[in-house]
């Protein structure tokens, strides 16, 4: 294991997150078993107070997940000089088999935690805890994922050998070598990918505005926002990063949050994550629209989520277009495809 401050911080964060989620899930299970809104018994009052504890814990876990996602990528970047051949975070994540799964799991957990908070906010509006059973079932569903993420992350950092030869960012993402997940992304040709991105985005935005106005097609929009999330990540690797680096071969999606590129990656990723969390939040809330106690406020809340998601996706697209226009890389010839 590399005794590096960032590694220690990462492990500390993931252990704390797991501890908090397990602690919350334990109380959640208790609530699931003995919750009875009608009874005024002491146990019911104690359980109700516990709901505050659980929502506070989950809010902190949500924030921690977001921060530790960026710290994880940062640590990979600082450790890359230790590995022969690793030029940036992408290479370091390849040091052993746990690097990328941890990253993907961290993103998934972040989205799940976000979804839980959306559900929790909606539930708090109802005067008889309408969604309490569903949200704690979701919590029981999230807990194993976060524990799995902690195990993977510890495995990744603990058996990391300093001087393992690792494929560097260039080759990992360059398309000549078509092995490993990383290189497939890049082999998607950049020019057509731009069209795919813009078309998919316009469809998503159109569906979002339609849903916001008419209130129909919520599930469609939720599904589209998840699809758009994946397409955006893929397009970041295949063409957006090229424009930011102004280098036709540098496909790495991690270096854009580094200092040399004025931390532009943060803005891009935060807009993207915000959009997809509010997107899937809509999908999760639509089935409860006719719940009696939520009836009045839920459609307003879903409307706000839809608006937020559409605005964030639009802002993401504007930022991407600005990057493309302002970058002096001209993509006339076909690149690396």
């Amino acid at each position: 294991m590399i005794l590096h401050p960032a590694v220690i911080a990462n492990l500390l964060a993931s252990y704390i997150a797991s501890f908090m989620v397990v602690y919350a899930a334990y109380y959640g299970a208790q609530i699931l078993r003995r919750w009875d809104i009608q009874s005024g018994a002491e146990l019911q009052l104690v359980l109700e107070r516990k709901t505050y504890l659980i929502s506070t814990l989950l809010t902190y876990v949500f924030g921690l997940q977001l921060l530790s996602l960026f710290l994880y990528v940062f640590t990979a970047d600082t450790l890359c000089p230790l590995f022969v051949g690793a030029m940036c975070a992408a290479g370091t994540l390849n040091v052993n088999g746990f690097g990328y799964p941890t990253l993907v799991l961290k993103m998934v957990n972040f989205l799940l935690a976000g979804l839980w908070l959306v559900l929790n906010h909606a539930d708090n509006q109802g005067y008889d805890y309408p969604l309490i059973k569903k949200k704690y079932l979701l919590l029981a569903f999230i807990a194993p994922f976060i524990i799995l993420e902690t195990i993977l992350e510890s495995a990744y950092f603990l058996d990391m050998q300093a001087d393992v030869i690792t494929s560097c960012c260039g080759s990992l993402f360059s398309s000549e070598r078509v092995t490993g997940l990383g290189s497939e992304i890049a082999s998607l040709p950049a020019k057509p990918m731009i069209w795919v991105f813009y078309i998919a985005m316009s469809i998503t935005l159109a569906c979002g505005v339609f849903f916001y106005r008419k209130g129909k097609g919520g599930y469609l929009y939720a599904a589209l926002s998840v699809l758009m999330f994946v397409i955006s990540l893929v397009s970041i690797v295949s063409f957006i990063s090229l424009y930011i680096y102004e280098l036709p071969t540098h496909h790495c999606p991690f270096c854009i949050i580094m200092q040399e590129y004025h931390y532009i990656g943060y803005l891009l990723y935060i807009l993207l994550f915000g959009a997809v969390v509010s997107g899937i939040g809509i999908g999760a809330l639509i089935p409860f629209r006719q719940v009696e106690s939520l009836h009045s406020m839920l459609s307003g809340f879903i409307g706000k989520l839809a608006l937020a998601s559409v605005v964030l996706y639009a802002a993401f697209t504007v930022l991407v277009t600005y990057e493309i226009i302002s970058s002096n890389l001209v993509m006339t010839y076909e690149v690396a495809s």
Partner: protein
Amino acid sequence: MRAWVEKQRYIIDFTLSSLIRRKVKNFGLLALYTLIVFILASAMFFTYSIKREASLILKGSPEIVVQRIKAGRHDLFPVRYLETLRKIRGVAAVEGRLWGYYYDGLAGANYTLLSPPTQQEAAEPAKPSAKTAVVEDEETEHHGVDASKPLFEHQGTALEPGTLIIGNGIARIRNIAKGEFMPFRAFDGTILNFRIAGTLSSQSELVSSDLMLIAEEDFRKLFGIESDYVTDVTVVVDNPSEIDTVASKITKLLPDARPIVRDEILRTYDSIFNWRGGMMIVIFSAAVLAFVIFAWDKASGLSAGERREIGILKAVGWETSDVIQMKFWEGAMISLTAFLTGVILAYIHVFFTGSLVFEPALKGWSNLYPHFALTPFINAEQLITLFFLTVVPYTVATIVPTWRAATIDPDSAMRHTGE
């Protein structure tokens, strides 16, 4: 939205006044918190900037250094081996290096004596290798070089036999200047007097504060090294990506030789300062743990007054989540102030006062400690790591006690009769 902001401002109003009311305990916590952030931040800034400076400066170090090992110890390198090295394909130049240590009893410091590569040779392998694209500036300096030119010349001071060019650290310790004499005891006890021809610049103390440049024959006379031995050998390789293959060839050809590749040098420094950063964190985590327990205890051990206060708040109309927000703000205000103050003080400490606090630990027992100003190097990653190591544990430690405090019954204020 406006009401939400206004509510937060009200809660901050109330939290600040309640913090100020219990001045001693809260400011004690704040001071301890700032101290922890300060020490952690200083350690991190110091190690990160030294690591970066090392990687920038040592880029130009020799591509391969070959040492001879006898019985596990570094031994002198016979000159006849140089021929076998020159015959290896892909080797551009091979050159012996003469350097050693001299313990000066007077100042109690070790000096590194080095006989610099003679100017001609230094100019000859001037073909810029792919890695270091810096153009060698020596040629432009003295293009019409004449035979009588001194063997080595540094910023105008020529190094003739019998003279020395000393590092700034040595000049400072022995407070001697150009033109004075410095006695040396040779290997056989005879005293050799050398005139100081000049000193190296004070900016480069990080690499040269204990360095002494001495002519080759003086070096051999001082240490009694015959002319057919050198300390070690540097090898310049045509194609930088060939370095590893050349190194493995060297080990095959000279079993008792040990090549050290430049990347290895850079990686040594990286992992060493990682080790130090991590070591500092591990040792320091005991202090952070103690601090977290203190914060947990302070948060859960509510005094009767605090408990009564929350009871009143709940009675007059504050909801549990309002009290939780108040406690959150309490934690956030202390953490934010402590974090910012700690980081600012650490920045000043490391980059303006040259980490005064760490000097005794870093200096160790060497009286000759280079005075160097570190180039400030700070990025978001260090601040996030610092945030995770200090603010996150503090916040997490106070979550459960905060919640327990917030769930005091509203009617407790009613039950409370006696005063």
